């Protein structure tokens, strides 16, 4: 289907570092911008979902979560599937479609330019479609690691639906042909978050957590059941949203809670059985994320029942996107960046650096503290309808995102210093 790029790194499935790291670096920048947009438009959030809020949400979902997931899977999935990615050039092309796509979409949403937003959405859709093709190509005929692979197939299916709905909604911004977009918007949001990102996060957890903790993988059967339930929940959520059947969406959320319980049990089991006693600070992020997943589902159920007030959908969306997914991705990113960097960083004497020498823990600790503060303040502000509290939370979020970028810059500096060392 694709030409195999001869420039592929001699180490086989290890891509040139510029491929994954351009995604990671951009995701760190977009996170700062996302919190800044939320800070600027904090006043709008009190009244519900606005263009500013939609822009901040898409900066996180497309600019940070999808950007990180794409960079990570391009590099990590081929190692797990033992099949090289078809072409690093196509990986890079994904980046050059996605980044301007996000910028145009956000600019269009914030500037009230429907056609610009539609063009941005179409570009982002093209990027995600290319990613989907490369992802599916890598997954075909893989029989090992069924738990991981089934989750990622689920993510791929959800991504296909997300892209279709997303492009339709983005084009509608410019052309205005959809008579009723509320149901499609909800389906798009649920499939993008719990579907694409959620299934991908859970699938990759089954590779990364055992590796980082040096522990046996979780049991296959219950986690395959979990993946099956998750897919059923996504189908119900999508149908319920499009058909405006809240009972189906509620049933999906209940199934989602069962999935979260199976997943949580698997993760706790892995951590308990680990050989590596010292897990590293990034596990603090992961532990928080594992709590926020069921919390987001519970909030979704409460919002659906109208028990969270007029800002219920926002509270739910914030817990889901800025809470569970962003916290999980940030923790994972902080660990896989030095992991991958160490494999590309060789001193003049041929030595790779120590991981501990690459990782600056202080900025990461600062990031976590500010991120946690941001989550609590924004949630409190949304619950109480206090714009200033939301703005203060968003400012803490900016601080946390800057600290994460500082962590990345320090990693880069330390890699360069190691390469130049004897």
């Amino acid at each position, binding site marked *: 289907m694709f030409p195999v790029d001869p420039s592929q790194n001699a*180490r086989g499935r290890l891509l040139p570092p510029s491929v994954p790291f351009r995604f990671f670096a951009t995701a760190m920048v977009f996170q700062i911008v996302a919190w800044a947009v939320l800070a600027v438009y904090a006043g709008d959030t009190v009244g519900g979902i606005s263009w500013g809020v939609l822009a901040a949400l898409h900066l996180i979902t497309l600019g940070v979560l999808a950007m990180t997931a794409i960079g990570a899977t391009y590099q990590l999935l081929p190692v797990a599937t033992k099949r090289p990615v078809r072409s690093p050039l196509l990986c890079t092309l994904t980046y050059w479609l996605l980044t301007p796509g996000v910028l145009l979409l956000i600019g269009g949403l914030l500037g009230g330019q429907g056609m610009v937003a539609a063009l941005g959405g179409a570009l982002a859709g093209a990027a995600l479609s290319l990613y989907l093709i490369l992802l599916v190509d890598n997954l075909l005929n893989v029989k*090992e690691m069924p738990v991981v692979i089934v989750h990622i197939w689920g993510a791929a299916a959800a991504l296909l639906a997300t892209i279709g709905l997303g492009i339709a909604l983005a084009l509608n911004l410019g052309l205005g042909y959809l008579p009723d977009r509320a149901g499609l918007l909800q389906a798009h949001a649920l499939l993008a978050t719990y579907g694409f990102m959620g299934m991908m996060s859970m699938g990759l957890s089954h590779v990364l957590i055992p*590796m980082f903790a040096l522990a046996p*993988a979780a049991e296959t059967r219950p986690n395959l059941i979990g993946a099956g339930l998750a897919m059923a929940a996504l189908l119900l959520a999508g149908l319920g949203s499009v058909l405006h059947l809240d009972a189906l969406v509620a049933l999906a959320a209940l199934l989602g809670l069962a999935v979260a319980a199976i997943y949580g049990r698997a993760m706790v089991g892995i951590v308990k059985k680990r050989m590596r006693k010292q897990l590293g600070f990034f596990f603090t992020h992961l532990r928080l994320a594992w709590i926020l997943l069921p919390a987001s589902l519970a909030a979704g159920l409460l919002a659906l029942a109208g028990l969270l007030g007029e800002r219920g959908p926002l509270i739910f969306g914030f817990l889901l996107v800025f809470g569970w997914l962003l916290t999980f991705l940030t923790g994972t990113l902080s660990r896989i960046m030095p992991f991958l960097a160490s494999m590309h960083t060789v001193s003049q004497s041929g030595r790779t650096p120590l991981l501990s020498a690459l990782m600056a823990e202080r900025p990461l600790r600062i990031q976590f503290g500010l991120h946690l503060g941001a989550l609590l303040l924004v949630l409190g502000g949304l619950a109480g309808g206090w714009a200033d509290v939301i703005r203060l939370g968003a400012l803490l979020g900016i601080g946390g995102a800057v600290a994460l970028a500082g962590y990345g810059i320090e990693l880069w500096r330390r890699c360069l210093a190691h390469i130049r060392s004897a």
Partner: protein
Amino acid sequence: MFGITSKTGQLLHQDHLNTIATLQKMEEFLVKQTSKRPPDLADEALRRLIKDLATGIDDEITRHFGFEEGHLFPALAEAGESGMTDFLMSEHATIRPIAQDIGRRSREALEKGFTPESWAEYHTIGMEMIEREVFHIQKEEMGLLAAVNALIDADTDAKLSMIFAGA
């Protein structure tokens, strides 16, 4: 790490478990002791720990690394997997001299004890060796054992496991 279906993979995994257990104990001791306080080698438990480390790490870099480099990696290269094995070989080349150094220093210490200077050096080199070896095992558990499962056929697996068991 995933279900290890090959006999060779299971043996390598068991070796990893043993090595990690020794390294964990040593790491806990080094962190608790700090580099500034030389330990008292009259303590029998400590002498056993240092001896176990020297023996275990010597076994790791001779028998375990030797089997991988001499038998397993060529078999994987023949099956088309040379990128990962080249990378793991380069890590062996980095770990081996550090492990040899810590083995030599351990044996010397058991004979003569530590001075503040020799302990500070031992502490630094020991921590580096532990980190490198643990990181190396993480990669082998994720990539190498999966590759053995996927790429080594049953006959080759049987031959390799016999060689490793007899090594």
